[in-house]
């Protein structure tokens, strides 16, 4: 085949990883933030938002890049949490008591396997049916752990769960735990941003946009989708382990339908278009959860978050990220208009 030379082309754009000054500023802010605030803001707001952000990130990856809305991401996180409790040490003396370096990788593996099986079941469906089948899996897991006392300790669940004292540090203390959460969140965020331009990531976006065409290019669409579930499962599992350490306990309530929906709300509020959305959504969610009591009665938290959800989705289907884009476009237009005006 005679193919013209392309040696004089500019360098490919695909592998670039641009870092802008404001991104470095945000990173620095996240690092110094806990040094300037009391423990409540370190843990209940900072660490908690980062952890929920990691779990929501797994949904952003699946839905934003793969077009698959799974309601089972909190359930995957719950599987990891339960696995940590069962394989490790808990206060009910029901754990196997295995060391952390076995427990953590094993829990991640079990949860990833669970996510892969969830994917294997749900990639046969699309759209609303994927949501329904993953919701069914989430509800089934909730009832399983509530009714099973032999393995999951039923309604009570497990308590006394804490991060292991690695390097002689008490990782449950507010400052180390914030940085642990930030580290895991940072790694997951960077991994998703990097993967979005990897072969797997671009293929996933191709499958989201046109699965039939991808099959006509030689891609096994089902296998790619299942692989995406597995990767998202690993991210959710990391979040799930952090969450169980954060709460110090896990029970059926941790994987109930309301918690499952919370993750969807967080991801949609933030915006599914970019991994940043998951963390933006988590911050808004956590602030509302903590301070709804000051606005309105504690019992009315769901009303507040529901109204916030409706308002954001109504004004910007792309979530907060979409609002940010609209605002920056408007400011650019305004700046342009001002320039034109001054230039007259």
């Amino acid at each position, binding site marked *: 085949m005679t193919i*013209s030379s*392309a040696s004089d082309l500019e360098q*490919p754009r695909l592998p670039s990883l641009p870092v802008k000054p404001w991104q470095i500023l945000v990173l620095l802010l996240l690092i110094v933030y806990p040094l300037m605030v009391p423990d409540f803001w370190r843990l209940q707001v900072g660490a908690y938002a980062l952890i929920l952000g990691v779990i929501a990130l797994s949904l952003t990856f699946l839905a934003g890049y793969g077009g698959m809305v799974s309601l089972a991401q909190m359930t995957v996180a719950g599987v990891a949490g339960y696995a940590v409790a069962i394989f490790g040490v808990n206060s009910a003396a029901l754990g196997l008591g295995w060391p952390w370096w076995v427990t953590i990788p094993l829990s991640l593996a079990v949860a990833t396997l669970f996510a892969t099986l969830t994917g294997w079941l749900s990639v046969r469906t699309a759209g609303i049916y994927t949501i329904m089948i993953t919701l069914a899996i989430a509800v089934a897991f909730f009832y399983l752990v509530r009714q099973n006392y032999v393995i999951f300790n039923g309604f009570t669940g497990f308590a006394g769960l804490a991060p292991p004292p690695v390097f002689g540090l008490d990782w449950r203390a507010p400052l180390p735990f914030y940085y642990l959460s930030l580290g895991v969140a940072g790694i997951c965020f960077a991994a998703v941003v990097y993967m979005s331009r*990897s072969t*797997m990531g671009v293929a996933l976006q191709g499958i989201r946009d*046109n699965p039939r065409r991808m099959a006509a290019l*030689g891609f*096994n669409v089902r296998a790619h989708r299942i692989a995406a579930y597995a990767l998202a499962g690993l991210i959710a599992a990391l979040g799930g382990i952090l969450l169980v350490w954060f709460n110090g306990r896990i029970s059926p309530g941790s994987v109930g339908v309301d918690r499952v929906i919370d993750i969807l709300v967080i991801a949609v509020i933030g915006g599914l278009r970019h991994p940043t959305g998951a963390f933006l959504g988590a911050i808004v969610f956590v602030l509302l959860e903590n301070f709804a009591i000051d606005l309105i009665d504690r019992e009315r938290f769901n009303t507040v978050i529901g109204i916030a959800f409706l308002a954001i989705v109504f004004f910007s289907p792309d979530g907060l990220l979409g609002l940010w884009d609209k605002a920056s476009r408007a400011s650019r237009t305004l700046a342009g208009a001002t320039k034109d005006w001054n230039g007259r």
Partner: protein
Amino acid sequence: MAETLSISQASEAHALSLEGVSRRFGALVALDQVSLTVEAGERRAILGANGAGKTTLFNMVTGDFRPTAGRIWFFGEDITALPPHERIRRGLRRTYQNSMLFRGLSVRDNLYLAAQGITRGRYSLRRPRRDSSELSLAERLAGYVHLTQWLDTTVSDLSHGQQRQLEIGMALAGAPRMILLDEPAAGLSPKERRDLIALLQALPAHVGFVIIEHDLDVALRVARFVTVMHNGQIFKEGTPDEIENDPDVQAIYLGGHHG
């Protein structure tokens, strides 16, 4: 052993072979007992009015839909039950009547996906290296279909003609043995049609193609053999001259006014 021998003999004989392929959509018989053979490197045109079953025929070959009856062989291998991606990996390619490109991605990304689809690195979690063979293939393919300067352009910003070129570029990725072209000249300007004809005529001799085309000028200039379909069946086969002068074909397809 006997089976291996028969497969190798079949592969020498035909690139593509359809035996009694039918496809029903409810009460509608879109394809009715179609048998067709195309040799390796052959350039075949398929003509027929709208609804004659041409695109359905392509969908059967690529596996987008399964036939209701009949078998399909590709270079001697029975591919009737294979999923679409397995057929592509065996050297079958196709372009679509309505552009099926990834409109939100750049030309480079579209070609890159086409190049990656038939390699082992499909599941790689790493970003492609600047000197990766798939990225350089994407660039070479862009050059081949005259899209080098639009490599970083988002597909939705390309003209219709450029999108058709990109479709062909994507079909050329890897080692195609047979390309199914579904109305590649639809909506093209006269100049773009000339470019398309030149592009198709310049394809390597071993790459065969089957082209569905309403524009007889394009179809008869690039094909050496023509199949005419009518009501889901093969109506006539012959050289472009024979088909162009066939009174039956003129009656059903050209309305008797052509030539």
